[in-house]
């Protein structure tokens, strides 16, 4: 039995981090893969940083030690940079969207470079300007990347069952962004856009 996959979904309060993590967990369970979903409580409310760990596989708790994150799903580059240090050197990081602007934030290129330096592979998906759909996009990208211990289509089914059509379309956007390029999760240093 393969060890459980350690996933973290991160973003700013209000972006849908918890919903994204929940959808991932529900989809996994529907596909027969046990899942546990947690919440890192800190300044999560009203625009603060939110982190939601998800363990896909047999585990009693969703908590895993820093340095063991295999998959980082980020809805904001600053939060991605904040969480990247806890990733394994072969981790896959997927970034889409941006939370509210914070004064003093380094430029996005610097943040993504910091993530790239820490993980095995970074995928960045550009979103249309007014989209509040970063969550489904990163799930679509993760599904296409082939790293999940269950078929990625299960997530799409979950979207279609519980959410308006725009969500499934966003999922497809993320999927295409990865499937278009090199979808293998081999450790690579590079950026897909």
């Amino acid at each position, binding site marked *: 039995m393969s060890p459980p996959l350690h996933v973290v979904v991160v973003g*700013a*309060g*209000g972006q*849908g981090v*918890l*919903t994204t993590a*929940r959808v991932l*967990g*529900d989809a996994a*369970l529907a596909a027969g893969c*046990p*899942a*546990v*979903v*947690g*919440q890192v*409580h*800190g*300044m*999560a*409310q*009203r*625009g*603060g*940083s939110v982190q939601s760990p998800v363990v896909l596989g047999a*585990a*009693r*708790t*969703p*908590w*895993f*030690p*820093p*340095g*063991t994150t295999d998959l980082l799903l980020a809805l904001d580059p*600053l*939060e991605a*940079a*904040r969480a990247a*240090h*806890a990733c394994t050197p072969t981790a896959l990081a997927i970034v889409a969207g941006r*939370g*509210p*602007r*914070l*004064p*003093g*934030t*380094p430029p996005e290129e610097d943040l993504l470079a*910091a993530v790239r330096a820490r993980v095995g592979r970074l995928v960045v998906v550009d979103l249309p300007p*007014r989209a*509040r*759909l970063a969550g489904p996009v990163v799930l679509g990208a993760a599904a296409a990347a082939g790293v999940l211990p269950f078929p990625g289509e299960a997530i799409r089914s979950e979207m279609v069952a519980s*959410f*308006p059509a*725009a*969500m499934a379309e966003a999922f497809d956007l993320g999927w295409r962004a990865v499937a278009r390029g090199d979808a293998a999760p081999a450790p690579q240093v590079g950026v897909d856009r």
Partner: protein
Amino acid sequence: MHRVLAPPGVATLLLGNEAVVRGALEAGLGFAAGYPGTPASEVGDSLRQVAPLRGVVFRDSVNEKVALEAAHGASVAGARSLASMKHLGLSYAGDPLATLGYVGVNAGMVVVAAGDPGLHTSPNEQDQRHLARMNGLPVLDPSSPDEARRMARDAFALSEACDLPVLLRITTAVAHCRAVVLGDPLPVGPTLRPALLDPERFVPIPARARRMRLLQEGRLDRARRWAEGSSFVRVTGRGRLGIVATGAPAALVADRIEGSGLGDAVRLLELGMPWPLPEEPLLDLLSSVGRVLVLEELTPFVEDALRALAQRRGIAVEIRGKATGDLPGPFGYGPEVVARALDAFVGGRAAPPRDPPPAPPLPVRPPVLCSGCPHRATFAAVKQVFGEKAAYFNDIGCYTLGAAAPLDVGHVLLCMGSSIAQGAGASPFLDRPAVAFVGDSTFFHSGMPPLLDAVQAGVDLLVVVLDNRVTAMTGFQASPASPPSWREGKAETSIEALCRDLGADPVRVVDPLDWGAAVGAVEELARLPGVRVLVARHECPVAGKHFASVPGPRGARPYAVDRSRCRRCSAAPACGLTPGRAYQRLRVGARLAAPAADATPCTSACPIGMCAQGYVSRAATGDAAGAWALVLRDNALPSVCASVCHRPCEDACGVGGPAVPINEIKGWLADVAEGRPEPSFSAAAPTGRRVAVVGAGPAGLAAARHLALKGHEATVLDGAPAPGGMLSQAIPAWRLPAGRFEADCARVLAAGVTFAGGRSVGRDLPLDALLAGHDAVLVATGAGRGRRLAVPGAELRGVTDALSWLRHLRAGPIPGGRAPSRPYPARGDRVVVVGGGDVAIDAARAALREGASRVTVVAREPAGRLPAGEEQARLARDEGAEVLGGLDPTSIKVQGGALLAAFRPAGDAGAGTRAVEISADAVVVAIGQEPDLGWSTAADPAFPQIPVSDDGTVRAGPDGAVPGVPGLWVAGDVAGARRTVVDAMASGLAAARAIDRALGGDGRAHPAPAASGPWDAVPPPSLARAAATCRACGVCATCSACLDLLGCPALSEVDGAIEVDRDLCNGCGLCGAICPHGALIPEPDRRSLPVLGPQGVGG
């Protein structure tokens, strides 16, 4: 279908809180009541949705005490009941909780109290297990969502078996963890039993209470035995090392033991009931291992009880935990803490993973009020009125975030409903008004008794009820103030009516997003005594979306920045001006909307281009040193200008409204600068070029300073022994106070200028010799010779040249000047002044000061349009002079020992005047000046002629270069410049820049000096107020009022310019209301996509 109601045996991801609800439903729950609070809110949220489907009566109680009491009432009436709250709420309900342990229950009762180890969302991390022990109640502590379900289910039977309410104490890590839960079947409906209306059981008068007290031990024993036989006390593994783990850490350590393969070395007892202590399994463990580690969060509750148990039973086993330093005291235990403790306990065999590299320092995201939150507007309005001069008492809710920057409202906060009582207690001792903030939900929770108390006590207190019509922070639960459509049609309760009935007076209701009304209401109530209430009511914009049955188009249009008005320049501003927050607040509501200009009217009107907006703004914000440095950058003689400048800047400013007293501010700065260190100009590299400036008046000094600052060797020559020209020789001392010119002159010399007095060019030193000895010569000798009156009688004794007389009054006759051939006006004389310019007015006012019995000014120009200007004419009149206009002199005669001056109407200007004859003892002539061209004398007869105009001034090119004479420039009055101090300086500067260019320089302005401050100096209040009326016409104002005063997450700065994030903006319009320039406006109407999902859903 709600996931809590999933069919039995179907694996579902449930939150711990949802699992509790599932378990309670499995037990036939009949009644539930609760108050939201992180991490308990989802218990109530789930129940609210599923209760109607399950025949369960569910209440959103106004507070936890009521919820607990109502649940007990339902239990007495025969329904299995549940009360849910966070740990703080359990303490709030402490009174009924304590007696419940005595009176017991009828139908089973479970109290869900969710704890917050780590204080993620609470002001304390109290360990509720102590409350259970203190009150004689059993407490269950789940380590996983499914265990929480089973505990919730079985707790009702336990409650009935031991006749006590059972405390289910879940913590954040489990309450908010989603894990696989396999539900058991749900009964058809609630499990009901007959009501038990038995006073012997449920009315604990002391005699009965004593009997009940003696029942406690027995009840707890039953609970203990129940736990010992349940699945909630679980032992796994074997070995000589024992671990007792309870709560969330139990799951962590179980995972860790398995992951490290230590199942044969460690015997783990997972303790689901920490009180009463299930002694048998624990004693079993204690007797079979050599060491025990107790793993629990917060206080050493189990650890201490275990030590006591071991000691009581004579078991000498080593018990380790918090008391022995093996585990931290405060906060929750994450996986690293558990891993490290386990590893140490097993002697290094559990090998925790190495620490990862430290996180990079990145900006922290603080929690902020959402964009469009009406609380932001309420706080901003209160801040606008009180500023820092109030004591702010805050309370619990979304509005607690008002304490964060930049609103900074909240000095004191304690707990739910505490703000009014704390404010009332502090009020008698404060030196400033007390303002208490409370939300609508908090008001209903526990705000009414303290309000009544404050009224009864007769304190002075302003209570602001922030009514956003919902309990927002905990996830948008409806409150009694919510609109009926959010509460199944129930009418809302009127907060203002309650406040009036409790005796507050007055009570006002205002919409905080109506800025003018909000500020007005606060202002009105601020001044009144007693307990006043302001209800600031506006629906939470996010709650509106939350309660909408279908996602709809966004409500109000988002705002956008009108770049033509926004005063935040994206390029680096010239003076680095950054207005402070106090100044921004002064400008709020100025609403002086005018298009932004690159060049402000004041700067454009000033001949030397002073940045008036810059130094006025800096002075107004308390940066006097910075303001002075800016003044000195542009102006070589600022103190002089403060006294005598004709202020074209104020004329230009005054076009759009009352003019800012720019010059008065400059004068204040000059006064403040006296005695303080000077701003320092950086030294330019010496160019080796030598420039001679002839004439030490304003034109010459300004030019010389500029040339010196550009690195040239600048020498100023003047026939007089001291510099100043008209400034020190002719302008009366009561117009230019002594010392002012001297201070300015010292600065000019300190910039590197050399002064050579007593050197009269043309007479002592021929012009061509001067040119030969320098790389450039600038002549700025002024126009210091009074024109002679060309009428019969002009040479009579008693007729005097005004300039000569003024010079005489200042310092006696100057060598080389025209020697007076007559005595000057004497005390008691009747004086006629012929002329209408500055010199004429100065002479008239001098005559009055010298004791003239009557002074008449007769000018050729109309009396209302004298060249000296309206203000000068008014001053002369106010001091007692008569001013006549439109008259030309025709003759002066002697008559009867005095003079008779005759005048006739002066052409068109004299229309409507009559010829007049005025008798006088002295006639002072001030009909204009002309330059003395003596400086142009050259030794070489072949030296080119200096071209001269009809009025005697030199005819030179626009930058002052004299045609035909290479190396010679002219500036100031001698060059025909307008005859004011600042125009002379401008002329000198223009010539100096041209000279700089001609000598190989860049022809640009010299750099600004570095401020020498900060100085502790603020303008007097009236001057500060006047300075604040500056309309900041120029883009270089770097206004950031919206960013500095509001802290809205939708507003940010991108590449120096202000941006509105239209996805975040909720269109409340507060930024538009406070922007001093009207630069924030609703976007033009256009279709937009529906916004999916609530924003900022949180605990």
